[in-house]
């Protein structure tokens, strides 16, 4: 289950919203298949080209029949701009799968009522998570917040029990925060990924309700392999690498 480094071919790239892309590549190594919550270091440029570091992007979806590996990402700066320029047939270099991810089988075995809470592009890793939970026997409730226009939601429908939507602008769903919608006491566990403020809010609700909560964190990364200690998170149980020990942590260990 360790990471490998290889070149992959682009199968498709799609624009879901002005700054949101869905990139599908062909994974080739059946001995190193990714699971939900893991990520890859992506590099669509030469080692000597800018930006100097590769970019961590979560597994959005993975089809272990065909090997189709999907990323959902937001175009922010130079790195993601270069990813966005990729055309079908071109190749990129990836390192992964990286990180602990979510153990969907164990979670579905241990907990019966599961809430999955995402915000913005933080929904990216949640699709495969919902899929794997569903396949493992628990159809989760999904809570998602967006600024204005949601994207990528259709894909979640088959795998979720209910979908609760909030937007900052009120354009769709609840006008306000996704945390307004969540009653943590209704769940055995809450799994979350999104902006830090949102995850901190979710963690607080869970702490108050005594519900376990797992959060997927982000940090700048150089290696993605636990080798450089550039992505350390100072948790209550000591320093941990987000790339290898994480990105998924017990919320109580990382939030006050």
């Amino acid at each position, binding site marked *: 289950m*360790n*990471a*490998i*480094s290889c070149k992959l071919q682009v199968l498709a790239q799609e624009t879901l919203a002005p700054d949101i892309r869905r990139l599908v590549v062909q994974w080739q190594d059946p001995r*190193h298949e990714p699971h939900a919550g893991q990520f890859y*270091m992506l*590099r669509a440029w030469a*080692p*000597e080209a*800018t*930006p*100097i*570091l*590769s970019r961590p992007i979560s597994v959005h979806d993975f089809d272990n029949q065909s090997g189709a590996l999907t990323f959902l990402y937001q175009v922010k700066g130079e790195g993601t701009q270069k990813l966005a320029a990729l055309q079908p047939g071109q190749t990129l*270099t990836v*390192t992964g799968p990286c990180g602990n991810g979510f153990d969907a089988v164990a979670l579905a075995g241990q907990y019966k009522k599961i809430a999955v809470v995402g915000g913005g592009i933080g929904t990216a890793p949640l699709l495969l998570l919902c899929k794997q939970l569903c396949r493992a026997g628990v159809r989760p409730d999904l809570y998602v917040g967006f600024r204005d226009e949601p994207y990528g939601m259709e894909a979640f429908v088959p795998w979720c029990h209910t979908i609760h939507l909030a937007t900052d602008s009120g354009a769709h769903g609840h006008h306000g925060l996704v945390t307004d919608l969540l009653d943590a006491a209704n769940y055995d566990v809450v799994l979350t990924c999104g902006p830090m403020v949102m995850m901190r809010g979710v963690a607080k609700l869970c702490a108050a309700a005594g519900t376990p909560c797992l959060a997927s964190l982000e940090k*700048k*990364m*150089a*290696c993605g*392999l*636990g*080798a*450089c*200690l*550039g*992505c*350390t998170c*100072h948790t209550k149980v*000591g*320093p941990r690498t987000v790339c*290898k020990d994480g990105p998924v942590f017990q919320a109580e260990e990382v939030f006050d």
Partner: protein
Amino acid sequence: MADLHVDFLGKRLAGPVIAASGTFGFGPEYADIEDLRVLGGISGKGLTLHGQPGNEGERLYETPSGLMNSIGLQNPGVQHFIDHELPAMRRCGTTVWANLGGHTIEENVEGVEKLCAAGIDVLELNISCPNVKQGGLAFGIRAQDASEVVGAVRKVCTVPLVVKLSPQAESIPEMCKAVEAAGADGISLCNTFQACAIDLEKRRPVFNNTFAGLSGPAVRPIALRMVWQAVGAVSIPVVGLGGILTGRDALEFIMAGAAAVQVGTANFLDPQACVRITREIGQWMDAHGVKTLDEIRGCARN
């Protein structure tokens, strides 16, 4: 096919490329990524006697062709390393370089004793660490300070002792002569360059410590100059590093006289960099009819 081995202080290194400290974990992280047995060695993450959690705040920052880091020597401590990381490091199939950087002479001495007893191949003493007794000035700035710590460590070090120099040394040639005189078996250089970046929106330095270490291709020409000076200053072997990304880069260091090279930041740009660079060196040698590295080591100095 060119013979890439290097005879280094009594060890036979499989190739001239050693993974640089702090960029390669303790080795197993890269085990599924490339064949570590073709490497000359792995220099593990820098250790301190008691371990430390490293710095708060930003730890990484990209610059033109460079990377700044402020890890702050996060490490599990010498004993934890011996108990937990060293066994796996030994199984990587290459030489084990323990990189140690203490904040006092006593800490360094104790760390070296333990590491040598535990069984390592090379002790790489990182003297870029702040010396708490000198008000935080690193051991590696003044030749006198370096001399003292190297002399003390030498007495207890039972494996080859390679001293890793800081580019902030007041004078590279004098520093090299001082550590040679104090008993170093070899020198590696250079560590990261002290550098600064400012966050315009916060109107504050990016890093909590104001300064951080710069590495990567940006610094390569300066590092090569320092390696050239080091080779000219001493007769012990010099391991060159700083910004090496290709076989051609590595060959520049070898032609300047480096016994071997280390590769750091390039591991992030290409996780297979160490093996690729080794292969590229071999390809260049084959294309130029060079059979061993001894044929070209230092040739640019003539």
